[in-house]
């Protein structure tokens, strides 16, 4: 679970410190060095300016002083000149020319000899330059190592002109005052007048002239920049220059930068070292905390960490230690809670075993139930036991819900289990619901009245068709009885009222009384607890008895399991997402005639799987064919009259090869999409013949009595207006043909005796008029699965042989019959246009032909469907 540390905290702190200090020092250095450089620049420039000013001033004074001396010499009598000249140490010699052009030369032997020259050597040097610079009043002459300044002066007052050769030592002395600078003097034509460094030819004359100012300090030079100060002396026509290499001038600055770098590195190293020490003190506790979390992840709770620091990390360590302790405590609590929850789950599991299966098919009744607790365990319970062709049912509701109530239901369950053992020995108890309740009351009284339970017990005696019941303050169940098969109304539901005894566990003597009513096949007993009525929806409205009753009425015609499912679905649709606030138990008991067992004998594995997966068939599937009432098969050699043969053959082959050659009454098209529904419906029709209502929900049925062919237009009109939602476009055409053919057959085969013979041979252009007793009932209906036409006459003459013979003839010849009466194609058309062709004949009483078309959008599916055939025959007195 731990992730590899790529960038440790130590490194981060080091990096931060380095960045902070480095940044700070760098900014400071840049700022300070910039200031220093500016200051240094000001100093260098100022100093250079001072230097050039001073240099110029001293040179000018030197020149002026020499001219003054020349002036004095021009005034001196020749005799005194020599002596005066000797006092001028810097003068080598003087050329004197009087007004009368008399020339004379005076030499200062001492000065010449100071230059290590003899007089003759000097004179030679002097003579060379005399002619070259005669016109200039001031110039400098060079000869190897010897150089001198020549100055000429003409005294306008006396016409004497003097010219002197003067030592440059004073000039050199002046220049030597500025040792950092290279000083030189340029003439206005760019020629060097004098330079303290003879080899220096970089004079920047052009750059100086380009500046067009008299004096300035500027930076010049491209390859090697110089700080150059210059001053132009227009009087002398000389340019005084001092220069210094910039690198030389800023040498101190560079030195300072280098020193700063070294200093910065030292500071950074020091800071890094301190940061390392600091980060160690920071990361060490964090590592301890990290190691602790690793231990947590391994489940080693309860470990603690030792952190001495008093900062936030110290606090965090304290929190970890506290958390560690809390986790240990919480875990122990959770263990305890889990143990309790486990026990409650165990209790729930144990309690679930107290309840019978949701769907139970007994010999004479089906039991369909629903139970859900409001919490883990509930206080509702129901159970049953069978003995001596009797069924005892108990439903109970303990006060409250949860574990205490569940424990009470365990007591109730035990009571019934005990009573099951007493069915042969204590018949006086088990035959009386009141005694059963008393028995249970005594068991529950052991709880000292702390927990109470309402209960209802009833006993169904199949032999005597009697229902005996007793009530211990429980909601009275309902008894549904509709012997005439009418549309269900409220009046068909009777509450099982009578003397209501105290709740179980309330009183020592229960004083429960047995009540009796009669009960018959196909009737229902509906038992429930108050949870279904009292649970509320999001508007806090209770479901209530009114809605419950409406649901019972709406769904009562359904098969028992579907009935229960619909009742519960209706209730939960009302509750919505609101949790129920009480346990709900609902039990519906339907009395059936006798046990219906069906067996399966199918070769096709896929089909076998499909049929055997019909767990919720209202009839038990048996492997024992001998004791089953019918067999579902796909074997063509297994065509007993009550078999359900699933056939893949065409309609023609089914008629000519199966129905013609056997006594089979039930043939199902293999490609029936609702195979199970078809089997269930026809099984219901076999065991509880209710006609059309066994096939479709009759709520949309439209019926019409037909007495003659004149009524056909009304039938057509009904079919035209009927709603064929979700069906292909043209079922009405086929339904009209089916109706026409069936009604025509029924009309012309009505009556009895001579009437029957006369009508059956009657020209079909003439319509017989039937009496009301002979009336034919035409019904059309539909639901989400089927559209059905039913034509029911009152003759009961339509037999399997008549139907099959007619179909055989039609399929064989595919032609009409040329005989008196009909064309003989009516059944052929009705059969061909039906998906299920069902005949229900009550011998001598009625014949009903039901033609069913599957609801589907595709005509092709309708056309491809192999027509199923079902024939039911009952005795007339059934």
């Amino acid at each position, binding site marked *: 679970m731990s992730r590899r540390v790529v960038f440790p905290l130590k490194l981060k702190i080091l990096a931060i410190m380095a960045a902070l200090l480095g940044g700070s020092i760098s900014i400071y250095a840049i700022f300070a060095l910039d200031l220093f450089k500016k200051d240094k620049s000001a100093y260098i420039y100022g100093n250079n300016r001072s230097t050039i000013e001073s240099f110029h001033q001293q040179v000018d004074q030197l020149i002026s002083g020499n001219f003054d001396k020349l002036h004095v010499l021009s005034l001196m009598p020749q005799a005194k000149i020599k002596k005066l000249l000797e006092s001028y140490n810097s003068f080598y010699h003087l050329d004197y020319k009087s007004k009368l052009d008399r020339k004379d030369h005076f030499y200062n032997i001492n000065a010449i000899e100071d230059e290590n020259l003899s007089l003759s050597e000097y004179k030679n040097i002097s003579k060379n330059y005399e002619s070259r610079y005669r016109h200039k009043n001031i110039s400098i002459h060079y000869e190897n190592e010897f150089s001198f300044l020549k100055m000429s002066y003409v005294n306008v007052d006396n016409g004497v002109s003097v010219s002197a050769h003067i030592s440059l030592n004073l000039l050199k002395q002046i220049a030597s005052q500025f040792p950092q600078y290279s000083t030189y003097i340029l003439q206005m034509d760019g020629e060097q007048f004098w330079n303290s460094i003879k080899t220096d030819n970089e004079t920047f004359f052009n750059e100086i002239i380009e500046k067009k100012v008299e004096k300035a300090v500027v930076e010049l030079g491209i390859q090697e920049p110089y700080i150059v100060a210059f001053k132009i002396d227009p009087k002398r026509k000389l340019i005084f220059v001092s220069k210094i290499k910039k690198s030389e001038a800023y040498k101190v600055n560079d030195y300072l930068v280098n020193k700063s770098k070294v200093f910065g590195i030292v500071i950074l190293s020091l800071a890094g070292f301190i940061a390392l020490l600091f980060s160690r003190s920071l990361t060490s506790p964090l590592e301890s905390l990290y190691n602790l979390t690793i231990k947590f992840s391994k489940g080693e709770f309860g470990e603690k960490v030792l952190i001495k620091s008093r900062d936030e990390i110290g606090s965090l360590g304290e929190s970890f230690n506290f958390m560690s302790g809390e986790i240990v405590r919480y875990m122990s609590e959770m263990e305890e809670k889990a143990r309790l929850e486990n026990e409650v789950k165990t209790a729930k599991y144990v309690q679930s075993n107290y309840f019978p299966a949701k769907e139970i098919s007994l010999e004479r009744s089906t039991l369909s139930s629903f139970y859900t607790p409001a919490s883990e365990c509930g206080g509702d319970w129901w159970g049953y036991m069978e003995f001596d062709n009797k069924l005892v049912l108990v439903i109970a509701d303990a006060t409250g819900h949860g574990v205490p109530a569940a424990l009470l239901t365990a007591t109730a369950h035990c009571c019934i289990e005990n009573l099951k053992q007493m069915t042969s020995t204590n018949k006086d108890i088990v035959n009386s619901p009141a005694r059963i309740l008393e028995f249970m009351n005594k068991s529950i009284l052991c709880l000292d009245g702390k927990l109470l339970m309402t209960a209802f017990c009833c006993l169904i005696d199949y032999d005597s068709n009697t229902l005996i019941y007793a009530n211990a303050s429980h909601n009275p169940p309902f008894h549904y009885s509709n012997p005439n098969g009418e549309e269900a109304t409220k009046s068909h539901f009777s509450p099982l009222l009578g003397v209501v005894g105290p709740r179980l566990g309330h009183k020592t003597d229960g004083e429960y009384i047995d009540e009796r009513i009669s009960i018959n096949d196909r009737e229902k007993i509906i038992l429930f607890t108050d949870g279904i009525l009292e649970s509320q929806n999001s508007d806090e409205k209770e479901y209530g008895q009114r809605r419950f009753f409406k649901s019972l009425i709406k769904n009562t015609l359904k098969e028992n399991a579907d009935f229960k499912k619909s009742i519960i679905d209706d209730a939960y649709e009302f509750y919505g997402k609101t949790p129920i606030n009480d346990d709900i138990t609902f039990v519906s008991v339907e009395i059936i005639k006798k046990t219906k067992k069906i067996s399966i004998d199918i070769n096709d594995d896929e089909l076998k799987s499909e049929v055997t997966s019909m767990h919720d068939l209202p009839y038990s599937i048996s492997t024992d064919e001998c004791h089953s009432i019918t067999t579902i098969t796909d074997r063509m050699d297994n065509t007993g009259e009550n078999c359900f043969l699933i056939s893949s053959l065409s309609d023609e082959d089914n008629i000519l090869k199966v129905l013609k050659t056997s006594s089979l009454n039930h043939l199902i098209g293999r490609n029936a999409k609702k195979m199970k529904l078809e089997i269930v419906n026809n099984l219901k029709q076999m065991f509880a013949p209710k006609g059309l209502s066994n096939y479709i929900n009759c709520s949309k049925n439209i019926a019409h009595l037909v007495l003659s062919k004149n009524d056909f237009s009304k039938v*057509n009109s009904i079919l035209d207006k009927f709603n064929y939602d979700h069906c292909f476009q043209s079922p009405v*055409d086929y339904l009209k*043909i089916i109706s026409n053919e069936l009604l*025509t057959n029924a009309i012309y085969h009505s009556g009895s005796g001579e009437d029957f013979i006369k009508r059956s041979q009657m020209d079909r252009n003439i319509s017989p008029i039937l009496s009301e007793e002979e009336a034919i009932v035409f019904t059309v209906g539909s639901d989400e699965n089927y559209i059905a036409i039913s034509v029911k006459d009152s003759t009961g003459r339509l037999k399997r042989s008549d139907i099959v013979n007619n179909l055989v003839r039609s399929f064989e010849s*595919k032609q009409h019959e040329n005989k008196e009466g009909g064309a003989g194609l009516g059944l052929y*058309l009705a059969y061909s246009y039906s998906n299920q062709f069902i005949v229900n004949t009550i011998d001598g009483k009625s014949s009903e032909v039901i033609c069913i078309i599957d609801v589907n959008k595709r005509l*092709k599916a309708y056309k491809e469907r192999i027509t199923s055939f079902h024939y039911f025959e009952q005795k007339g007195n059934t």
Partner: protein
Amino acid sequence: MSDKLTTKYDIDGDTAIVYFKGMIDEDSEFETIKGLSNKTYIFDFDEVSLINSCGIREWVNFLETIPKDVSLTYRNCRQIIIEQINMVHGFIRTGACVESFYAPYYCESCDEEFKVHLKSVDVKDSKAPVVTCSKCQKSELEFDAIEQQYFQFIK
């Protein structure tokens, strides 16, 4: 039933075009057609609403009265007529032909069934011609019956 069959005629030289309207049943009257004595009959079934078993018998018997040298053509046959032709021997005489008829098609996109008017010559090898949905104008309609069964009459 009450939707009695009526007939109208168009005579064009030797050809009589007979328009049927209503239900062909036991009350249907074909006598007047017999009296036309044309060389060619074209029966138009476009407005036939229904036919029952007695109607089939009347129709087959009527056909037997028409001389063998008379040419018979069935035009605009509705689905129920085509089904009778396929199901009942004699509903169409040997040598007679179906010129045009209606066939069921289905559009998956529109979830709707259509009766498409086809000519027999358009049906090759019992395969339904390709038809595009007239409603959505994009989907190819699927033939909504069993082709081998529905086009039996063309053989």
